[in-house]
């Protein structure tokens, strides 16, 4: 898996490409988000559009980083859920846990708009 990073204001966008599965992308994602949190960059959007495979380890890693970010007053939100990742999230009942968006603008703006407002 590869991971590209962009900043939009105080929001960090992580664009993943490749396999977010056991022993492939999970370690890289953990390290990068932990780095961001250590720098107090706690508003994170993970773009899954170019993720070709995802499994319970990949999803588990996203959940773990979500928990860490929320503990620091931030959040991990998802962008461009593929059919594959949507299905895994749906079966795991995680669609209610994560905020997911189809547009980058909406994902970034959501950090300045309280949920439900």
């Amino acid at each position, binding site marked *: 898996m590869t991971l590209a990073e962009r900043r939009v204001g105080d929001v960090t966008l992580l664009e993943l490409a490749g*396999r977010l*599965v*056991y*022993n*492939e992308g999970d370690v890289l994602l953990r390290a990068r988000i932990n780095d961001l949190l250590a720098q107090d960059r706690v508003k994170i959007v993970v773009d899954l559009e170019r993720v070709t*495979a995802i*499994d*319970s*380890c990949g*999803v*588990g*890693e996203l*959940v*773990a980083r*979500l*928990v860490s970010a929320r503990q620091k007053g931030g959040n991990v939100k998802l962008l461009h859920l593929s*059919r*594959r990742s949507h*299905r*895994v999230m749906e*079966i*795991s*009942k*995680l669609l209610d*846990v994560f905020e997911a968006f189809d547009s980058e603008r909406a994902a970034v703006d959501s950090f300045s708009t309280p949920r439900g407002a």
Partner: protein
Amino acid sequence: MPPDEAARLAALRQYRILDTEPERNFDDLALLASQICGTPMALITLVDASRQWFKSRVGVEFIETSRAISFCTHAIEQAGIMIVPDAREDARLRDNPQVTGAPYIRFYAGAPLVTRDGHALGTLCVLDREARTLTAEQIQALDALRRQAEAQLELRRNLVELQQALTARDRAEAEQAALIEQLRAAYADLRRLSALMPFCSTCQFTMTIPADPAAIPALTDGVVQVLQDKGWAEDDVMAVELAMQEAVANAIRHGCRGDRSKQLECAITLDGSGEVVITVRDPGPGFDPSAVANPLDPANVLKPSGRGIFLITGLMDDVRFTDGGRALQMRKKKA
């Protein structure tokens, strides 16, 4: 001993010059040194761990001497040319058997041959049986010849490095060509098999694969290809692929504890009824599937792990564990 002795000897090895045949380029320099300095003997020496070996020699019969009686071993410990007008009066050399006995050396002038990394490998030296000295012009000429000898050494090392690089390139090219040929053959096999697939009423594959996560995509890609050839719907193919990814990753992670030297067995059967049956068996201690916590429980929903089996159950029609949890069998019917 020079303070950099170990590194110096390692550098000497890199030149691959010890015990090689005489070479005109070096011999000419020794000859010129002997003629310009007017000495009956001249040498290009290389100081090895316990000997000094002569790449070129004028007026000297033997090709090497013990380092213990070497003059040059002293010369390489100092910067610049070491000149000994009369060895009988030099504390380091007066008891040397080459001074007290044949060939009765009296005069010695040795210019250290220093590498581009600063290691003195040996010398260009001139020797005489008479006590004497050199004129300023002769010293200057000896130093100029020393520079030429060093240049010859560097040229040699560059050639050695070039040859090594060319050999490495040739080897890499040969390996690449062999790999491409293997891939071409594998692809041809695959195409032949793949062409048969739509006509197979029953397919069965049993594979033993290393417990290496890197092996998973090849396995899942193969199953995806078979199901696509059999006209399965995209969503169902995706479900089987995801379930296999989970099952095999689980077997590697838990059944084999991530030990890549272990092996898994994977059996895939696709029969005439359009049902795929996949069994993944690991060599681990087994486990009790009923003891796995429900990941949808509010207490577990934010946990990072524990979703694999639940996911497989959600994706496939029927999932069961046998052999004390060591084998997972999952089925899905074509829609």
